[in-house]
């Protein structure tokens, strides 16, 4: 049954139930496994990273599968996907895989096939000059940056995703291509704190953030929204009922209470937050997902706000590089970024990364007390001497 070329295809709007297939579920995974994967399912003994981006898995049957991992923009055209398929048809028996972090994986079952595939992938460039299939993203390095839609396809973003990820990935390229870091370092990006990308447990998280309270579309809000739902949407009780001069139902915002989460806009389109001067980027660091050595943990805010400098976000890139380079220099082998920061102390983290510590970084939301220091165990950095000077504890 070929794809239809009729304008409405197999759908008959007169009889919408006719021939309707529902609840089919996804296609079964087994048919998409290349033969070497089917034959060795559950039999893998061990793997080796032969070089950055190249994995070799060895089965108890003696079979081997070589994987070439390539970076990719998750935003792809059908043309690029067709090129991926052309490569998979030529070298990989017509199979290809994508990872959770949006890398492309090409699998081959011989070392000869591997060499030819590598050479081909490295030779392919876009007309603009960038690599189509950079090989890397394994081991103690930086894998693909997972991200959200941004201005390409979302109604709530406080920044753009694809452009920021491109800019940061260009600068971190050597870490994608190499395995020179103390441990893996996962960078993630979300354009607002709805966090479709769930970046809150990443070694480095880039987060779009609004800084202006919503504007109320007074004349239309009662037509566009359920006002009680908009009021209930606010986690800090900053929205309350009001009336316009002409007596229409509306809401008012206690701006000093607003924490700019944007949940009201999600519930009510008459409360937009986005603003060129207000919106920007927050950097969080030190989170992880893995249970290896230490518990999974949340990322912490280390840079409260940077401007949306489209298209290359130089301030974001500079701060990310500072963190990555300080981590690369200071951490022990196997130590994730958050574990390093905890070992040396966050005061030392700010010093070594050259980041300013501002009042914005001290928690004042729920459970804030858990983050306050209730110990005399700390390290002296310049920030500590500043406190002493202001308090009159030491001479200038």
């Amino acid at each position, binding site marked *: 049954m070929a794809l239809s070329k009729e304008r409405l295809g*197999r759908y008959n709007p007169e009889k919408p139930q006719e021939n309707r297939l529902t609840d089919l579920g996804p296609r079964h995974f087994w048919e998409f496994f290349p033969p070497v994967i089917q034959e060795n399912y559950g039999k893998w003994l061990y793997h080796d990273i032969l070089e950055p981006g190249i994995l070799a898995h060895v089965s108890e049957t003696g079979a081997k599968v070589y994987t070439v991992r390539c970076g990719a923009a998750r*935003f792809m055209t059908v043309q690029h996907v067709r090129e991926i398929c052309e490569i998979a048809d030529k070298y990989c028996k017509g199979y290809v895989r994508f990872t959770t972090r949006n890398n492309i994986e090409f699998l081959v079952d011989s070392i000869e096939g591997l060499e030819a595939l590598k050479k081909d992938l490295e030779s392919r460039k876009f007309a603009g000059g960038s690599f189509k299939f950079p090989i890397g993203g394994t081991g103690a390095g930086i894998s693909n940056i997972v991200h959200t839609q941004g201005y390409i396809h979302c109604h709530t973003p406080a920044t753009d995703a694809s452009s920021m990820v491109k800019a940061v990935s260009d600068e971190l390229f050597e870490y994608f291509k190499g395995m020179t870091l103390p441990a893996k370092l996962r960078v993630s990006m979300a354009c607002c704190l709805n*966090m479709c990308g769930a970046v809150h447990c990443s070694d480095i998280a880039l987060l779009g953030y609004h800084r202006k309270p919503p504007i109320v579309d007074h004349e239309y809000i009662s037509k566009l929204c359920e006002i009680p739902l908009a009021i209930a949407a606010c986690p800090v009780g900053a929205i309350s009922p009001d009336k316009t001069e002409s007596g229409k139902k509306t809401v008012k915002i206690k701006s000093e209470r607003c924490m700019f989460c944007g949940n009201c806009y999600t519930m009510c389109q008459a409360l937009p937050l986005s603003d*060129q001067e207000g919106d920007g980027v927050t950097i969080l660091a030190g989170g992880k997902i893995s249970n290896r050595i230490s518990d999974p943990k949340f990322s912490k805010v280390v840079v409260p706000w940077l401007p949306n400098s489209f298209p290359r976000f130089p301030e974001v890139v500079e701060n990310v590089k500072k963190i990555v380079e300080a981590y690369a220099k200071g951490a022990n082998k196997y130590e994730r970024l958050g574990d390093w920061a905890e070992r040396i102390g966050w005061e030392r983290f700010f010093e070594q990364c050259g980041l300013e510590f501002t009042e914005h970084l001290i928690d004042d939301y729920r459970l804030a007390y858990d983050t306050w220091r209730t110990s005399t165990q700390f390290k002296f950095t310049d920030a500590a001497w500043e406190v002493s000077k202001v308090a009159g504890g030491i001479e200038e």
Partner: protein
Amino acid sequence: MAFEPVREMKKLNYEELRIYSDAELKNYTEEELKSFKCKYEIPKLDELEKGPWPSFVSDAKQEALRRRKLSDDQILTHRDAVEDLLGQLELSFDEGETHWKHGGIVGVFGYGGGVIGRYSDLAEKYPSIAMFHTIRVNQPASKFYSTDFLKTICDMWEYRGSGLMNLHGSTGDLVLLGTTTEQLEPIFYELGHVLDTDIGGSGSNLRTPACCIGKARCEYACYDTQALCYELTNYYQDELHRPAFPYKFKFKFDGCPNGCVASIARSDMSFIGTWRDDIRIDQDAVKAYIAGDIVPNAGAHKGRDWGKFDIQKEVIDLCPSKCMSLEGDQLVIDNSECVRCMHCINTMPKALKPGVDTGISILLGAKAPILDGAQMATLMIPFMKAEAPYDNIKEFVEKVWEFWMEEGKNRERLGELMQRVTLPKFIETIGLPPAPQMVKAPRSNPYIFWKEEDVKGGWNRDINDYRSRHKR
């Protein structure tokens, strides 16, 4: 071993399904692509073609050019869609604000999710993206594909949509970005009738489940992540397509505590593979690691000279529960004290393997920050067998859903409900006994909500009786 689909599936052969011939697929030259100019001035986007990382702008231009050159009978939706998208994106950079409208209820008949309405707020300026809806296609478990499937979806999507997609969306779906309302049903019919597949979740329903690569190509996987993901996705099709929940609900399946799909941070119900017997040790391989004959950590640190491998410093001293030691040249593990963090196994994969009595730990309640702050999943079931047909798992899922659907408020994630009703009350309701494994530490305040039946004599007391012993 092989797994069977829940129903027979159509074989896909691109040659029989395709829309475009080989000649039609190659409808522009390299020279034309190099000299391609978008119909709008897009200097900021052009800047993003530079640098080594794959440029989404360069990619978009390929499709923009191709659409320009397709004949009218080779395309059903707007040929300028990609150029209009680039134009609007450039404008968004200039203005620092998005130009997508809020919401727009569209979908396919009988489903409450899987399609997300999207409209430009500059429809006159960029008419080709005035309507630009998203369709989430439920990805196959762990995202292996045949090129027959992908090429067929590409033809269908270029013909009926923008030709732009995400591989993949954050939750895991293969995302088709941008089509008109008219084409939603036809696309759904093509997906079902030709590609024999279905769309994913959105809104207050079960979101498209996702899993790690599991036993397909990983020696650490403690259960069949694909099989469990596929089974629960199919078993709960109704919950996936027809929103009946207080809010979204996510399943994610990690084969081991390394957590490659991040289930512990981003799923309401997180399934993480584990084992309850002993780590398997090959003492000869341990010796080979110590002697430097095997590269540690499967070569993950090859890019830098970290010196000779030191098993004491790099494995034994880093063990979080300090349950390992070297006795002579034998590595000894006190497995009863092991917390299964995977570090020793990751570091010496040829010498150490997870045990063979494997299953899952189930954790509940992870979510991103909206509203009360981010939550990590909380350990609920330390160990459970995970074998087809997974009745024990389904029973647990349904108990949790029953409580959440009964008690959860509108837009309250499971983790938030657990906080609101408290963990003691929550486990009591779903019928689990309390265990120290569920907490990092016992409470430090003594404000225990004792129940009347816990206390001898109950709460009804006579003040006169009290006063008979104590003067006012």
